[in-house]
């Protein structure tokens, strides 16, 4: 029975849309509302395609990484710093500008 389901999924994925054509929708979903038809295309495709399921979860991961990076800024947690030369240079330029 499980075997039959797998075969059906495989057949369906050959007959339905290509990953290449559906993949833009996975991106659009982050920036706008998908239409009903687009949502159906996404759901049907993800039902049959494990690779695209992974693609979608990778996109979610990336979205969360950038979100976490912004949260770090909000919490004033930073990883880079101005070199001491740059600090000296900027201070001098500020003084020069003000005099």
């Amino acid at each position, binding site marked *: 029975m499980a075997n039959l389901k797998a075969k059906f999924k495989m057949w369906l994925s*050959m007959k339905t849309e*290509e990953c*290449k054509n559906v993949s833009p929708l996975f*991106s659009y979903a982050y*920036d706008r509302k998908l239409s009903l038809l687009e949502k159906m295309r996404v759901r049907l495709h993800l039902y049959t395609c494990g690779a695209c399921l992974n693609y979608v979860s990778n996109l979610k991961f990336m979205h969360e*990484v950038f979100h976490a990076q912004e949260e*770090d800024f909000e919490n004033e947690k930073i990883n*880079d710093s101005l070199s001491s030369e740059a600090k000296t240079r900027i201070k001098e*330029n500020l003084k020069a500008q003000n005099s």
Partner: protein
Amino acid sequence: MQVQTAENKTTFDATVWVDAHGDFLYSFAFSRVRDQWLAEDLVQETLLAAMQSSNSFAEKSSERTWLCGILKHKIIDHFRKNSREVELSDEEADLSSYDYLFREEGVWKGHWTAAARPIVWEENPEKVLEHTEFRGILTHCLGELPERVANCFTLREMDGFAAPEICRILGISPNNFWVMMHRARLHLRRCIDFNWFREGHK
């Protein structure tokens, strides 16, 4: 901070900002522009502008928030100027360089090739940022994109601007916007996958 009109006091304040907020402003700018010199320039421009308008600083926000607000404007101005100087090339809104990710023929035409097939990423998105090497990969991968495409992605994913606003800043059509975002995600996903998850850094 008390704002004084006396010149010597203003000078003092401005250089103190470099030590108090310089690293923060630099980190923020660097995450957006990925270039050390440019990020340093933006910090300096921000502090100069702040110095000249220090009476616009309201006590209700923190000094750092105020400075960061000025920096954000400077970064967007930079993106805007940059977009005006460079004509939109076909290459930026063209996806054909990613055709290699998908099979070209057979019953599985248009499906992922074996090499490009996405895998499960077993990592915590918050924890992974603690690795200097991972952050370096993010910077590197964003830097591989054409500049306007990377800026488009940054404005959306880091600053959270909506599509119409981004189109105005970068001078692109809504259609360009959708293509650029998809392109950026296709590329970043592939690049992070290749450099971090398949290289055995875990």
